[in-house]
């Protein structure tokens, strides 16, 4: 019980500890201790600004998702680079596509939008006023639907599992 109140979000506190260690860039007992303390205090200070912080269900899925995204980023970078460097402007067919969303957790939506943007070739440009769809701009493609389905299948599905 006490632990619960002290650590409402252990995953969060732990990641702060990691961030702290990143900052000091040196793993020593002192730093770990200090980091741990900060990992407890800072969330307390900032808790009011993050009401309804979601509980991460399946950390494994997170890792998987991250790896996939990283891979996509690398790959897509080359594609886009090719487009920018070798395609003549008039041949570049950019356009808009609306991706309807099923996930509702703001965190999930944000991560999805972020993923869309960071995987080059697409930029998540705007949400709808009710947050139920996301407006995506693609740099060059022939089939807008393909992009939409790719996004929904490859990313949103996984996010739904992480943020049920």
């Amino acid at each position, binding site marked *: 019980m006490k632990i619960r109140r002290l650590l409402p979000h252990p995953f*969060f506190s732990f990641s*702060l500890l990691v*961030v*702290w260690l990143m*900052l*000091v860039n040196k793993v*020593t*007992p*002192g730093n770990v*201790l200090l980091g741990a303390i*900060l990992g407890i205090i*800072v*969330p307390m*200070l*900032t808790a*009011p*600004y*993050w*009401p*309804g*912080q979601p509980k991460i269900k399946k950390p494994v899925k997170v890792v998987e998702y991250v790896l996939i995204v990283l891979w996509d980023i690398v790959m897509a970078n080359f594609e886009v680079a090719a487009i920018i460097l070798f395609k003549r402007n008039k041949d570049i067919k950019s356009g808009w596509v609306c991706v309807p*969303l099923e996930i*509702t*957790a*703001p*965190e999930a*939506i*944000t991560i999805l*939008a*972020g993923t869309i943007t960071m995987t080059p070739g697409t930029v998540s440009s705007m*949400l709808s*006023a*009710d*947050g*139920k769809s996301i407006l995506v701009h693609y740099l060059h493609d022939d089939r807008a639907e393909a992009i939409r389905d790719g996004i929904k299948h490859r990313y949103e599905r996984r996010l739904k599992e992480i943020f049920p």
Partner: protein
Amino acid sequence: MTDGSILAFIAILPFLGALVPGVMIRAGRNACATFTAVPTLLALLLLLIQAPAVMRGEVLTTTIEWLPQLGLSASFFLDGLGLLFAGMILGVGLLITLYARFYLSSDDPMGQFYTYLLLFQGAMLGIVLSDNILLLLIFWELTSLSSFLLIGYWKHLPEGRQGARMALTVTGAGGLAMIGGMLILGNIVGSYNLTDILAQGDVIKASEWYLPALILILLGAFTKSAQFPFHFWLPHAMAAPTPVSAYLHSATMVKAGVFLMARMWPALAGTDAWFYIVATTGLITMVLGAVIALFKDDLKALLAFSTVSHLGLLTMLLGFGTKAAAIAAMFHIINHLTFKAALFMTAGIIDHETHTRDIKRLGGLAKLMPITATIGAITALSMAGLIPLNGFISKEMMLEETLHTTWYHNPWIVPVLATLGACFSVAYSFRFVFHVFGGKVRDDYPATPHDPPFGLYASPALLTILVVVIGLMPHLAEPLVKVAASAVTGAETKPYLKIWHGFNTALYMSALAFVVGIFLLYLHGGLARIWDRMPRPEAKAIFDAIMQASVSSARWLIAGTHNGVMSRYLAVFVSFTVVIGYHAYATGGAAPATREMLPVPPIVWIGWFGVLAATWLVVSQHHRRFRSLIYLSIIGLMISGGFVYLSAPDLALTQISVETVTILLLLLALYFLPKETPVESSAGKRWRDGAIAVAGGVAVAALAMAFLTRDVDTISAYHLANSYKGGGGTNVVNVILVDFRGYDTYGEIIVLGIAGLTIYALMDALLRGPAAKRLRDRAFSPDRSRDRHPLMMVVVTRAMLPIAMLVGVYIFLRGHNQPGGGFVAGLVISIAFLMQYMASGFAWTQMRQRMEYHTMIGWGVLIAGLTGVGAWLAGKPFLTSAYGYLHFPPIEEFEWATAIVFDLGVFLAVLGAVMLMLYSLSRIARFAGETVNVEPMDYDPSAEAEENDDAAGQPQTEGQ
């Protein structure tokens, strides 16, 4: 030399007395008058007690040190001349006090009057008793001031105010000139002591500074004594109540100039310059005054010009520079006092009884007010210089003197002109007698006249008796005239005053004057018509014109330069700075360049180009305000990069974070300001500004280049050496900030704190002022975006906030040893909060704000201050630091330093100040009708967000 410490008391008595009447007025007019008479009387008695000694030829002196550095001492001395004048001042003062009691009406503030009168009396007394010319100057200026008050006594009358200002201007100007003259005199002699100066006459006259000194001093005397061409103020001073005119303008103030010439005689007189300046001025004044007097219908104006004329006479006599002339002058001073004071009072009585002073409306008063008529007639005849009255004797002596005077090898011009003057004085005197008292009784007087109560004619009557007595028995006045004249000439004089000198030229001249005078009066009607048609300069018009001209030219000058045109102020400032900076550089040599320059890798060129380009963009497009802000932030970025490259990491951190906060502030302000700057300045002005700007830029660049290419050994070697072992930190910059020069930092955070306060106070004032309405009526652009708190932004911020806080803590803790420190940490945290504010809006975030910003600044400043004060406990000076190391195994050693506590103060102050500024700004926004949000984001698609949100209440709008 006899001890005269009593003199100081005599001189101060009137001033002490002056305090009383103002207070006493409630006790009634009699009490008031009495309390004025007492000090005067007392002073007079004390003076008379000294008189015998003075008559024996002794000189009483006393000295009280005042300002030895300057040579100013409260020194007084009493000799014959002083006695004569002091006696007159106090004696007539008494008579005037009595006269005024009955003259002034009950609704005149009599307390004020007597206060002013005593002030003036004291000032005059001071002049004639001073033995230090600086002291004399003080009293001299005091007479100008007190007479200003007396002349302007009837302040509701424009004539009074204007007359007073004119008198002050003219006599004040003279006084200032005299200051110059006196200081020169003092420098020639090496002492400001009058007796020393009078003893050094030859030295003075030999000095090349003699002429300037003479002229400056005479300017003082002439203006005071209304000598041509400064005579014009006197008639206008007649706006004063008659007692004032009788006192100032017959007996005392106007005689101050004469007194001064007499006083300085041994030091200044006897040279050609003296003769031609003084005698000529006097002669002209005498004639001119007499002529004008004949054509004045106002009794007091007539008397005023007659006074001018008689002052001219006295001046002329002193100008002659002979013993006999001096004797004549001294004697005439007494005589003029007696008849002129009486005449003024008579005029006052007539005015008082008939409610007019216009001769044309008078006449025939002899039957209605015989006593007044007798007094007036006798004194007027004395003024005309008729035998056997005292005026006759001194006038004879004067004419006699003129006969011995040659002016530019011309023996007759002076006597002729003198006689001419005499003719006119006979004429106006007789006019006074015949046109006022003579003729048949009229029925159209504004008021039915009859003799006044005794109190009102007592004083003139007494004077009239003197007129007659001195006339018949002049030898009575001999001893006084003797000592006075001796004092003036600084040598033994033997006046031989008698009424009948036999049939001599002077007598014939008088006779001629009498006949011609009568004839002139007979022709008066015709002459007056000619006079009126004759074009002549109207002094007052000229004076006013000059005043007006100087005022308008001053306004033109000032309005042309101090007209609130900021850009010109700054342009002048910059250009001036460049010019004298260049002059300073050019007039000194520069040591040879010693440093060899560092290489410039391409990336630096790029950064440099970035700065140049961004600067050009900001300047060329400053009309597009938002855009120029974007360009501005490039400069900040490049400079931060430059700081990193040039080994100043702390600067880079500070620069970049400060720059960001500044941009945010500017954006917040720009929200209310116009988004565009109109093109207002002409192409010419733009070129001018451009030129100035380039000049400034080149100058600064050259200056920088000048030292960048030269070495100098600085004190910072010490800081590097002692930073660790003395300050316990390896980041020398930080140690300097919190330790070596912690006092600077202390001041710096106080500046921030005040900035926060000022901004808060200003906002508060604005929202209560007219600005509030303008804000309320403010319309929002209809096409602005509808999403205020986008989901994505909110979520990311929530993740960033804790991380940013860690960064802040990290930067703070390591500041003492690595780049960072309290200030940057404070900015980082505030930027983190700013992110939160931007994401979820002010109200929502504010509700979650625990610490209040005022308090935060307060604690910051206090903590920093108390850390410094803490050192006192250890008996060390303010801000002395201490540091050490703690060991908790297994954790490695942990350093502590009081400097870090100080840095904590810095941190809090910075955080508080920045947040308070933003708070104040967004307060305006909400005042401007901006709706406040209760939700952290526009819309949260997930359901559970609602419940966990503890912000279901109404948001606070006025947090602080």
